[in-house]
């Protein structure tokens, strides 16, 4: 199979674009898709310092790699979730990546901060592990960004992540989540750090291919807590649809965004008028205390 652009040997066939590309042309394609996502959605500019959330998986490490190559000012943030050997191996891969590129990395370990990992916190609060983990990640991304003066947090969510999340939200008719599902969430005048997803135009398979081609050493295992997660089922369903009808995921999610943008108000994390500082930690919240502090209050002392 030959590269559609230059006729060298192809390394990937992308059915949704009806094309095949060699390694060099594929890297250009990935960089172009990320650049397009950033500029068209006004995610950030070269003057801003970006906090990049890095798990050690392919998406976040590929995102960091692309942003460095596109000459953005980045600092990595790794949350060590305290999931035994999986978290230790993840942190080592993140540290090795940062060292090899000479870029700054912030590591925040739950075990050190709270004496518990995410599994114990989920068990003690009787919350599903992915739900407790999500609450904790969102809280720490925002808090660390605000405390250290980063205007924007970038995460490695890809097209498959967003399409499967959209499918889940539609199946459950979670309208308030649908309103918030966007590649950019506003900072609401400095209330929050802006949240951006520069990989939303790229399929999971494309990002995995980019990581392999660029010799990015990432953690291949799935998170051990994700077994049986609904998102994996939704991804499987969408991948079967994609094989039968290439471009399904792209049309589903980008079609949603197009319709969302035609709505009268842009998506936000929360209406600013409803927000006040959490009396426990000072982070913005709509409740009596923020969802993170509520979670931690339920952890036995």
């Amino acid at each position, binding site marked *: 199979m030959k590269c559609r652009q230059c006729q060298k040997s192809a390394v990937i066939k992308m059915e949704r674009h009806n094309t095949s590309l060699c390694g060099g042309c594929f890297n250009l394609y990935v960089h172009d898709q990320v650049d397009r996502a950033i500029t068209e959605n006004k995610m950030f500019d070269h003057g801003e310092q970006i906090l990049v959330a890095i798990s050690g*998986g*392919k998406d976040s490490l590929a*995102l960091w790699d692309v942003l460095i190559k596109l000459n953005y000012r980045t600092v990595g943030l790794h949350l060590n979730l305290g999931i035994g050997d999986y978290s230790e191996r993840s942190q080592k891969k993140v540290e090795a990546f940062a060292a090899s590129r000479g870029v700054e990395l912030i590591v925040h370990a739950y075990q050190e901060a709270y004496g518990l990992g995410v599994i114990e916190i989920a068990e003690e609060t009787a919350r599903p592990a992915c739900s407790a*983990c999500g609450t904790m990640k969102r809280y720490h991304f925002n808090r660390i960004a605000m405390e250290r003066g980063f205007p924007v947090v970038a*995460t490695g*969510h890809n097209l498959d992540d967003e399409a499967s999340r959209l499918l889940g939200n539609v199946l459950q008719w979670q309208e308030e989540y649908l309103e918030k599902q966007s590649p950019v969430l506003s900072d609401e005048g400095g209330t929050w750090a802006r949240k951006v997803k520069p990989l939303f135009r790229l399929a999971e398979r494309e990002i995995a291919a980019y990581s392999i081609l660029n010799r990015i050493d990432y953690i*291949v*295992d799935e998170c051990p807590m994700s077994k049986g997660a609904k998102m994996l089922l939704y991804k499987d369903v969408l991948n079967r649809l994609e*094989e039968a009808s290439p471009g399904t995921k792209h049309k589903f999610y980008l079609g949603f965004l197009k319709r969302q943008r035609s709505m009268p108000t842009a998506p936000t994390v929360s209406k600013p008028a409803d927000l006040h500082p959490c009396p426990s930690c000072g982070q913005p919240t709509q409740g009596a205390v923020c969802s993170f502090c509520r979670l931690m209050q339920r952890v036995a002392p």
Partner: protein
Amino acid sequence: MIPPMKIKLYHPTREITLKGPKQVAVLLRELNLPKEAHLVICGDELVTEDLVIPDDQVVEIRPVISGGGA
């Protein structure tokens, strides 16, 4: 005698051997692995589905879904 190809698989991590030659697309189909969710690495190189892999090759079939949420 030429040894068969060695194939590394995940979930769970294991190694199997298969007699070649075999086209990548056929290999994935026979192992019931959706091509949208897997990439094939032959030796050290990412390969496309039309490639025919001969015996005596080390092949990795890597799932594209991995890691945790960023």
